[in-house]
């Protein structure tokens, strides 16, 4: 398996690409350019995420997503009570939940938060006073096209900012946004440029890449990375991707519906998971990149739910993973 592994998945990619370019590129491009322009002064002043490579101590990281299994399995409490001493990489949406649960930089000094999404809504992830309690202790890894108000909010809360490029159109040549924005970044203080990361379309996959590529971690554990829905989630939640898109009337007994929203069995955790088209796209991508990573990179899925399983993914309960640190 070198590319996405099934006909289904390559079909998904074709459709996403077509729809994205026809309906979304113009909108996204404007957001990327605007955000990058407003971030540029700070990008020049602040650090490259490459510098994180030089200061990482641990070779083990836990990526914390905000999937439902995090709460269902009391994972944050189990992590807090463990002897784990590796790095913590919080996806932005999980940051305040993690801090409130005791997963803090005081307890885990190698503590990072990641934002890749350029949308302005991401500011809510940094809009909590608890973040200020850890002023200067959290390292924030931000895409150069992150919303500038979001980055400023994080900066005001004492998060140290480190920058990287999100790969979006680098393959389109020297006039691509990636290449032009990289040249502008190199114009001052970052003569060698910034690292550019595959996002996989979402912050969870981005965080996995950052652990490997920037933090040089060889063991990457995932919790709260479900990339799917549970049987207790309503159809409205599932069909709108939790309010992110419009509800479409469909016959839930139709074959078409079952194909778009398959309920799959996860044999590693003996549980079921419901996918929507977006999670099919994201999860296929993450599984592919894990498969393509070097043998020395071990990916442990301790989510205890969801649909991330398969080649090169070792599934285990979080307690089992944490026992290695006792």
């Amino acid at each position, binding site marked *: 398996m070198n590319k996405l592994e099934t006909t289904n998945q390559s079909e998904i990619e074709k459709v996403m690409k077509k729809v994205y370019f026809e309906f979304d590129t113009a909108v996204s491009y404007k957001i990327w350019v605007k955000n990058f322009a407003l971030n540029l002064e700070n990008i020049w002043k602040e650090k490259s995420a490459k510098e994180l490579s030089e200061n990482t101590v641990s070779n083990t990281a836990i990526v914390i997503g905000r999937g439902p299994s995090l709460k269902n399995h009391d994972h944050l409490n189990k992590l807090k009570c463990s002897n784990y001493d590796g790095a913590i990489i919080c996806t932005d949406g999980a940051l305040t939940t993690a801090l409130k649960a005791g997963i803090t930089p005081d307890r885990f000094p190698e503590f990072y938060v990641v934002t890749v999404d350029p949308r302005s809504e991401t500011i809510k992830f940094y809009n909590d006073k608890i973040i200020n309690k850890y002023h200067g202790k959290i390292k924030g890894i931000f895409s150069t096209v992150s919303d500038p108000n979001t980055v400023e909010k994080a900066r005001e809360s004492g998060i140290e900012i480190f920058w990287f490029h999100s790969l979006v159109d680098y393959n389109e040549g020297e006039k691509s946004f990636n290449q032009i924005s990289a040249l502008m970044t190199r114009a001052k203080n970052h003569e060698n440029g910034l690292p550019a990361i595959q996002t996989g*379309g979402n912050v969870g996959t981005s965080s996995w890449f950052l652990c490997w590529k920037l933090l040089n971690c060889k063991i990457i554990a995932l919790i709260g990375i479900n990339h799917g829905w549970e049987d207790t989630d309503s159809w409205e939640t599932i069909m709108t991707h939790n309010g992110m*898109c419009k509800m479409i009337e469909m016959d839930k007994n139709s074959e078409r519906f079952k*194909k*778009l929203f398959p309920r*799959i069995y996860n044999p590693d955790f003996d549980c079921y998971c419901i996918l929507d088209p977006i999670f099919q796209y994201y999860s296929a991508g993450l599984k592919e990149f894990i498969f393509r990573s070097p043998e020395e990179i071990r990916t442990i899925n301790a989510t205890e739910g969801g649909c991330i399983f398969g080649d090169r993914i070792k599934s285990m309960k979080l307690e089992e993973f944490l026992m290695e640190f006792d």
Partner: protein
Amino acid sequence: MKTNFQKNKIVEHPKESLAPKSGDKKDYTQSEFEEFIIKSGAVGSYMIFRSENEEDEMGISEL
């Protein structure tokens, strides 16, 4: 990126399941998938980055 802890009331879902692992069966047509994506507006901020140079897809250390 899009989930949260808010739980919904227990709802009925089909009990049957599809095969967990991948296969070569084409489960739906491109037009079915495309129609859903367009109608729902389910286009995210990013796509998976693809390149003719497959190494680039795994990231670039200095750009």
